[in-house]
């Protein structure tokens, strides 16, 4: 019973308390790049979750075999293999998603969330726990992407879940009667408004992310938690980073002289 409870904890911590995007500030590039629509966000989230769970399982199963000196390259090879598998699957079954995500699909390899979880969790815990941790982090990542995607798509394009058939094509043609998302443009035009295109442009991505971050910080600080910061603490390379010490020294020296 006790084990079951903590398994649940491992799962839920990725959703809110340690949400990879809004609390640990990892994986910012895909977060900003693919959230122009909710459909893309869901697709990216699912692809990353699959890679995350699979690589966590394999890395945690091999954690006693991989020598600690070459662990980062070993992790990268494992992750890259799963990314290649996912990439081929997406190309074969959801080709529209492959076009929409472009280079960001292979770039899951360098997504800090995956290497970060491998280093921080899977290399120290059993297979079952690592799988659950990966799943929780993946769902948390997907949820954060969907939040961003919803804000940007509704405000910027006046649609919601547009092009969802591109994903549903997995389950056959014309699922849900060919329903292809909501479209508010007609209603907006009726009251003489237009969607704010800025929000689906890159600038809108930064803006929405900033505001979401502020909200997340507000909630965290009102619960007595630290604000989210970007720094060495959550960087997956921190453990092996030879420069960290020098870097800190030089930053401290600068801070002292300024």
């Amino acid at each position, binding site marked *: 019973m006790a084990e079951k409870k903590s398994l649940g904890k491992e799962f839920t911590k990725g959703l809110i308390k340690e949400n990879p995007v809004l609390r640990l500030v990892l994986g910012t590039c895909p977060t900003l790049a693919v959230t122009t629509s909710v459909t893309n966000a869901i697709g990216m989230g699912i692809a990353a979750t699959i890679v995350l769970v699979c690589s966590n399982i394999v890395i945690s199963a091999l954690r006693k075999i991989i020598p600690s000196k070459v662990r980062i390259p070993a992790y990268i090879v494992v992750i890259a293999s799963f990314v290649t598998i996912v990439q081929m699957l997406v190309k074969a079954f959801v080709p529209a998603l492959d076009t929409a995500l472009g280079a960001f699909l292979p770039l899951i*390899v*360098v997504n800090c969330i995956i290497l970060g979880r491998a280093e921080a969790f899977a290399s120290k815990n059993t297979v079952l726990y690592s799988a659950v941790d990966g799943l929780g982090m993946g769902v948390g990542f997907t949820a954060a992407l969907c939040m961003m995607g919803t804000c940007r798509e509704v405000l910027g394009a006046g649609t919601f879940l547009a092009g969802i058939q591109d994903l549903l094509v997995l389950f056959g043609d014309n699922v849900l009667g060919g329903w292809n998302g909501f479209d508010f443009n007609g209603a907006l035009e009726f009251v003489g408004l237009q969607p704010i295109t800025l929000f689906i442009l890159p600038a809108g991505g930064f*803006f929405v992310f900033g505001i979401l971050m502020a909200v997340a910080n*507000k909630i965290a600080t009102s619960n007595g938690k630290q604000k989210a910061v970007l720094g060495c603490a959550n960087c997956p*390379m921190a453990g092996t*980073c030879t420069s960290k010490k020098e870097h800190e020294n030089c930053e401290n020296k600068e801070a002292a002289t300024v």
Partner: protein
Amino acid sequence: MKYMIALLVMGLLTNNFVLSKFYGICPFLGVSKKLNTAVGMSAAVIFVMLMATAATYPINVLLEKNDLAFLQTVIFILVIAALVQMVEIVLKKFMKPLYNSLGIYLPLITTNCAVLGVVILNIDEGYTFLQAMVNSLGAGLGFMLAMVLFAGVRKKMENCDVPEFLKGLPITLVAASLVSLSFLGFGGIVEGMGLI
């Protein structure tokens, strides 16, 4: 020649790697606090981007010849990781001053998606070797331009009275949004100059 200049201008202004394509956001937000660290980091990125393009382009030709193109992702990330390590060792041994200014950023570049991103883009776009190199240079210079500009913005921002809930990362992101917005103004410059 015209196309090469167009590639450079696109990388620098209209299709800026950081501000409009979202590659390398982590160093953009993390290392842009001070101007000299921003310049050091971007110089290291330009260096590694050029080396990585030069190394992966022939490898890709080899892979495609042997019908192994699906191995691209695995091979490229390994090549980049090995390259970064090697460059670090060589610099440390033979070029101490350069190492002192660039070296400390090198380990962080392996997981920088800008480097893998430019390599993959070069192949997706089907560039020739020379075009790929110019494109990488443009992307790297664009990265540097964004970093340097943003370092200046952040320096100014240090003296500003920011509302409590926006302090830290949120206001940095909003500032990045404004910098990105200003780059929208360059849209159409390549067509306007008659380069394409």
